[in-house]
C-alpha cells in the first residue's frame, strides 16, 4: 500500500527530493514522498558501503523502479555508519513508508552546520509547487 502524500515538519529537505532527520551529529537520510511517487514502485536499491564518505549535493546510491534508475543525492556530508538492509531486500518499503521504515542510510555528519542551509517542510512544498 503506497503512503499518502506528506512532508513531516521535523525533517529537513534538499531540493533534489531528499530528506534528512538530524540528531545532533548524526542524520538519517531518505527520499521524499514526491520522489518515490515520481519513480513508481521501487525494485532495486544500490546502497553505499558503510564507511564510505558522502558529499552534500553528490550521489551516494541508486534507486531503481520499473520505469527509471535515479541517483540518490546526499542532502548533507558525512560518513555512512549504517545502510538500511531492509530496503535492499524489499525496496518497495520506500513506497509504503518513505519517512519511517523506508530510510536509506544513517551518516555521521562531517559539518552539522550544513543542516542550516536545508529547506524546511514549507519551503520544500514551495519548491514542489513551482515544478
Amino acid at each position, binding site marked *: 500500500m503506497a503512503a499518502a502524500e506528506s512532508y513531516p515538519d521535523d525533517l529537513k529537505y534538499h531540493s533534489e527530493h531528499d530528506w534528512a532527520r538530524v540528531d545532533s551529529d548524526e542524520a538519517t537520510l531518505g527520499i521524499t514522498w514526491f520522489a518515490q511517487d515520481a519513480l513508481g514502485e521501487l525494485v532495486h536499491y544500490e546502497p553505499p558501503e558503510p564507511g564510505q564518505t558522502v558529499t552534500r549535493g553528490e550521489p551516494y546510491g541508486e534507486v531503481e*523502479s520499473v*520505469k527509471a*534508475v535515479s541517483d540518490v543525492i546526499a542532502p548533507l556530508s558525512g560518513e555512512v555508519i549504517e545502510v538500511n538492509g531492509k530496503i535492499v531486500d524489499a525496496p518497495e518499503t520506500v513506497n509504503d513508508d518513505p519517512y519511517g521504515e523506508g530510510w536509506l542510510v544513517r551518516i555521521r555528519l562531517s559539518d552539522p552546520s550544513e543542516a542550516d542551509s536545508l529547506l524546511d517542510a514549507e519551503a520544500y512544498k514551495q519548491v514542489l509547487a513551482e515544478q
Partner: protein
Amino acid sequence: MSGRYLSLTERDREAMLATIGVASIEELFADIPESVRFRGELALEPALSEPELVAHLEELAARNIHAGAEVSFLGAGMYDHYVPAIVDAILSRGEFLTAYTPYQPEMSQGVLQAIFEYQTAICELTGMDVSNASGYDGTTVAADACYVAKHATGRSKIVLAEALNPQVRQVVKTYATGFGLEIVEVPHRGGTTDPDELREAARDAAGVIFQQPNFFGCLEAVPELAAAANDAEALPVVHVDPVSLGVLEAPGAYGCALAIGEGQSAGNVLSYGGPHYGYIAARADYIRRMPGRIVGETVDAAGKRGYVLTLQTREQHIRREKATSNITTNQTLLALAGLVHLSWLGPQGLREVGETCLALGQCARKRLERAGFELVFPERTTFKEFAVRVGRPATEVIRAARERGVHPGYALGRDYEGLDDALLVCVTEKRTPEEIDRLADVLAEVARA
C-alpha cells in the same frame, strides 16, 4: 539536377520554391557567402547508363577474392567456418529481417523469443547466468565489460593480457579515456600469460581481461588466471571464441565473472570483417550493469508464456549519459545467425567441429615441422591457430604466397615486437589435408625454413 535516379522532378522543385516564396535555388542559397562557395565543375566521371553501370560493378566485384575461391589459413579473430544453408534460409525470413529493436512486445514475440533462445544458448555455452541480446562486436563487448568491472568494484584500473587480441586491446584503450580507466598490460611469456605476473598487476584493479585460446592460439592456464584476478577482488573477464566451447571448459566453471567474445565464428561468414556480433555473459551479480538489451520470459494477463525486454531502465533512452552502453546498433539478425548455427550443430556437432579443428591443426603443425619450419611456441597446446617462423619477414612471405593462390596466415610482427618472422596459421574444419600439403609446399617455395 534532375535525372532518372533522382525522385524529384523539375516541377516538384518549382512547386517547393514557389511554396516558400523564392524564385530559384540560387536565391535560396543567397545567404551562403561567396567566399565559401564552390563554383567549378565537380570532378566526376560522366554518368553511365544502367547496363554500363552493372557491367562496371561486375568488373569491380570480380577483383575481390573470397575464402571459397582461394585457400585461406587466415584467422586472427575472424574464422572461415562452414555456415550451414539453414542459417541464410531463416535469416532471410521477412519477420526477422529488420534492424529495429523489438520495443513493442505485443507485435514482436517471434523476435523476442529468438533473442531469448540466443541468450539461453550463450549462457549454456559459457556457463554464465545471464547474457544480453548481443553486442556490437568482439571488441566493444570488452569495453562494456570494463564498465561493468569499474562500477562493480569502484576501481578504475584494467589489466589486459598482451596475448589478448590486439584489436580488442586497442578498442579498450580508446574507451579508457572516456571511462576514466588506467590500462596496464601484462606481457606474454613464451606464448601464454604468467599467472604470477597477472596476480601482481591485478592488485587494485577493477577487472582483468585474458583470452582463451589466446591470440596466438595457445591455451592459457585459465583457472589460475581467473584465481589471480579473484584473489585481488578484480573481476576476471575471459574473451572466448564460442566455437572453442565444444571442446574447452566453460568460463563459468573456472571462476570468471564475465565471458565475452566475437560471435562471428558461430554462424557468420567472413564478409570483409563485418558486420558481426559480440556476446557478453555474466554471473547474476552483474545483471544490473549489463550493457544493452536483455529479453526476459514472463506470462501475459491470461497466464500464457511471453517475452519482453527487461531491465531497460539502464538503457540509453532512459538513462542517457549514465546508460550501461551507448551503442544503439542492433546486431540481432547476426546473433540470430549464431543461434541458428549453434542449434543446428547441437552440443555433439559443436564438439565435432572443435575436434576436427584440433585434429587438422595438429596435422598442420606436424606437416610444417616436417617441412623444416620451427614453431614459435613449441611447448604450447593450440586450438585452431599456431605460430610458425618463416625465416624472413612474414609480410613478404604472405605477399609471395598470395601470388600462388594461398593465404598462409597473419603477420604477428604487426602487433608484437620480435615476431617479424612469425606467421599465425589458422586451420578450421573447412581446411583439408590436401590444402595443408599445398600450404607446406608454397611455404617451402617462398619462405626460409
